[in-house]
């Protein structure tokens, strides 16, 4: 798409347009009501159309006025960071706090190209101990350190 002169605004516009569209489409089933007694659909519908309008405006302007491009991503950091959060979420109820912290720390560390194994594993163990002491022992959060009971 060589005609897009302002990629940042263009894609932001697309994002707003899509979200606004979904909100307007989902919001059509909620009662709109009248100004006197606004229904649950009143404000969402108004906001959704505002978002659509703003998105459309951004897209059109991005075709006319030029602006900075979108900086390239490395992908490696993004994938491993999100993966670490998801892994933590999947593990915490199955294996408990300490093992989840260790695994998530290792996955997260892979996001950096400078990762070193010995350092990462010591950090992971250290964090697991710290979290267990801080959150469970000191702050009394109802978390299991190990899911298999200790």
């Amino acid at each position, binding site marked *: 798409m060589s005609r897009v002169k302002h990629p*940042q*605004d263009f894609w*932001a516009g697309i*994002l*707003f347009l899509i*979200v606004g569209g979904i*909100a307007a489409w*989902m*919001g059509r089933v*909620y*009662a709109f009501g*009248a*100004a*006197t*007694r*606004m*229904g*649950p659909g*009143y*404000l*969402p519908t108004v*906001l*959704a159309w505002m*978002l659509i309008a*703003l998105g459309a*405006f*951004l897209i059109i302007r991005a075709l006319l006025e030029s602006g900075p491009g979108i*900086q390239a991503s490395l992908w*490696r*950091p*993004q994938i491993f*960071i*999100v993966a*670490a*959060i*998801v892994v*933590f*979420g*999947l593990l*915490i*109820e199955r294996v408990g*706090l300490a093992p989840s*912290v260790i695994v998530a*720390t290792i996955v*997260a*560390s892979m*996001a*950096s*190209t*400078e990762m070193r194994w010995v*350092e990462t594993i010591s950090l*992971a163990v250290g*964090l697991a101990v710290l*979290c267990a002491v801080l*959150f469970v022992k000191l*702050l*009394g*959060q*109802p*978390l299991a350190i190990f899911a298999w009971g200790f």
Partner: protein
Amino acid sequence: MEILQNLGTGFAAAATPINLLFCLFGCLIGTLIGVLPGIGPIATIAMLLPVTFSLSPLGALIMLAGIYYGAQYGGSTTAILVNLPGESSSVVTCIEGYRMAQKGRAGAALAVAAIGSLFAGCVGTLLIAAFAPILAKFAEQFRSPEYFSLMLFGLIAAVVLAHGSVIKAIAMIVLGLLVGLIGTDTQSGVARFTFGVPELYDGVDFVPVAMGLFGFAEIMSNLDRHDGMRKMTATIGSLWPTREETRRAIPAALRGTAIGSFLGILPGGGAVLSSFAAYTLEKKVSRYRHEFGTGAIEGVAGPESANNAGAQTSFIPLLTLGIPSTPVMALMMGAMTIQGIAPGTAIISDRPGLFWGMIASMWIGNLMLVIINLPLIGVWVALLKVPYRMLFPCILIFCCVGAYSIANSTFLIMMMAGFAVLGYVFTKLSCEGAPFLLGFVLGPLMEENLRRSMVLSFGDPLIFVQRPISLGILVLALGLVALIVLPQFRQTREEAFQE
């Protein structure tokens, strides 16, 4: 002197050993995250929010407030020594502060930043003590139309004061408002935009949103840049500024305090904007403006005083009106809600110990921070040597454990991952997270007040201009809109954010 008596109540409440400990703890954490680039007060307070559940209300608020203004102190250390903003509110301090460090005056720059901040913090605290009760009394007359107008004003101010594109800032607010409406509608009981997920019936919890948008998005963007090894200035030098430096720093600190105190009250203002504005002001009015860019002490004293003053006074709208004006204040409101305190006009009269105790703690905290930051500077410098590859996994783990312990729910973790991706996309597209979060928090409040106003007026939208206070607020809002449209201001605004 009623104010002295009130402050007396406050000091009595804040100076108990346990509350002093919370204050110290908050200040230490604040300085720590202030010094470390890549984690800010928003993500930190969000992280610690679930933890405050088990604390006393006053202790929790004292600690969280300490983190916010403590970060203003810590941020300057990194800016001056490493030429990296430890905090977004210290971006401008890098310009003159680092130059001073290169000239061997790092110690003086650090001292001026800390003492300027202390002075500004004291003034900010006094301003809250003096004006919050008056404002709260005045706000007792507010009904739904006034609240709606006020929030509208807040959102407009957030747009005017946001960085970058105005249209994108408006769109981010609208998007935030929409996300804020997710959940069961309080009046009709209809579940809106929940996609049938039961966890969403109570609405989207804002802790994972704040962590995703401000914590993780930041980590991912930081890792995109290979910043390599940080270059640290070797010597800090004497902490004592020379007589000449002191003479020049004092008026700058006074101006910074004034501008910061004012901008802090405005919605969307807070610490970041205050420091930018103070730097721009110093560059315009200082007698030594030709020295700017080569290490002018005014460029450190002004912004550093301003960001601390702004951090303090940004508590005013929350404590008097119950309206959070910045993302950090939205989190403070969350902390109050967790403790079962409804922020608003009634806080001062219903919970004087809490209100005045918090104010007194800010003064105590500022004093602690000077001690934490100046004699102990070596400790923080050592921390800067921790490589980022070890730092970000720690941030990630604390966010995950924090988010999980809100409700022991895996769903919140997954939602946080979603908002992390969204936040990263926002940074790539130069969309600001702050207006989004503000809209998100204000969404439900605005809808409720809009509906109530409409019921009150039988559907006549003129109610907002027929009530004098509401009209006054809307006129102010219109003035702000005029500011954006006026070409002259537009230019200044762009210049201010260019730096």
